[in-house]
């Protein structure tokens, strides 16, 4: 189970405070989409709340928003492992995921904007126990490769204040 207890999660340096009203409890085979307006704190939540809470219990792979930087890290990692680094970003990401050996939790922060749907399919995200995704692109329908679909919405009522309300919704199965 991928879990985050209901509660308040402050991130002082970012001036944000997340309010999670209900426990987040996602069974293996879940897809979790993070949705919210720009500046609502989705990436900060990933990097300063969710990942720190999950990393003790789960193996994580994180494809960050700034792929311009991360692809250099991917190439360096593959080189250190003595593996070939493919040229295209999709192939590079696939090689990096394969080399990592982790098939538990994959976290993608707007990574889909770099790939076509076939390229995204080729990543075979269904092999992971959990897929966490930030995306502003169109909302996909039910993913047959992942039995459960959930959405965590981020609402920041006042951009000048730290409160961010998190709401969890089940997308599928109904």
């Amino acid at each position, binding site marked *: 189970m991928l879990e985050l207890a209901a509660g308040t999660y402050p991130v002082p340096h970012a001036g944000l405070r997340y309010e999670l009203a209900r426990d987040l409890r996602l069974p293996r085979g879940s897809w979790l989409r993070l949705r919210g307006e720009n500046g609502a704190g989705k990436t900060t939540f990933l990097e300063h709340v969710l990942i720190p809470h999950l990393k003790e219990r789960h193996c994580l792979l994180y494809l960050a928003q700034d792929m311009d930087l991360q692809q250099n890290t991917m190439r360096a990692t593959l080189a250190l492992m003595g593996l070939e680094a493919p040229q295209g970003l999709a192939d590079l990401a696939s090689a990096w995921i394969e080399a990592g050996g982790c098939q538990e939790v994959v976290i993608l922060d707007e990574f889909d904007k770099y790939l076509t749907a076939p390229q995204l399919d080729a990543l075979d995200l269904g092999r992971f126990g959990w897929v966490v995704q930030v995306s502003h692109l*169109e909302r996909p329908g039910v993913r047959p490769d992942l039995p459960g679909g959930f959405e965590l919405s981020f609402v920041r009522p006042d951009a000048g204040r730290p409160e961010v309300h998190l709401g969890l919704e089940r997308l599928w199965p109904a």
Partner: protein
Amino acid sequence: MSIASPPEPVKQNKSEERRTPVNASTLAEHGRDHCVIDMHNLFVGTTLEDELLLLGSGEKALADIGRECALFGVRLEPGRLLSSYSGGEQAIICSLTLMALLPRRPLRILLVHVLETLSPRNRELLLDRFATVLPDAGLFTLVGSEPQPVGRHA
């Protein structure tokens, strides 16, 4: 700069062809013919105030950009480094800065990974602001490695 056709009506990004790989040479390839806003090579290096100073613009431009940002729910903070804003906020701030500074004449503006970084609401709003503020400009995104008018493949 060549004259571009006005962009077609705003639509959601639904094309699979629109995904564009990270490419550091985008500015080199297209900067001659386009004003480029590339999320991986943003032209604001430090703070917005410093950038405006370098560009010879003053308090009025800053106030105008701040007002426009508020429409998008983005609150400009004096002296804050651009890189400390979220990716989407950076896209909005840089786009609105360009909008405030560019002359009102036919231009080609190339948005690279900008629209995909915005929420649906802000994407629509940004395109609307471009159409209102720079009605003679043509907006483009990369399809593969070629600029195409926004909306053409939506």
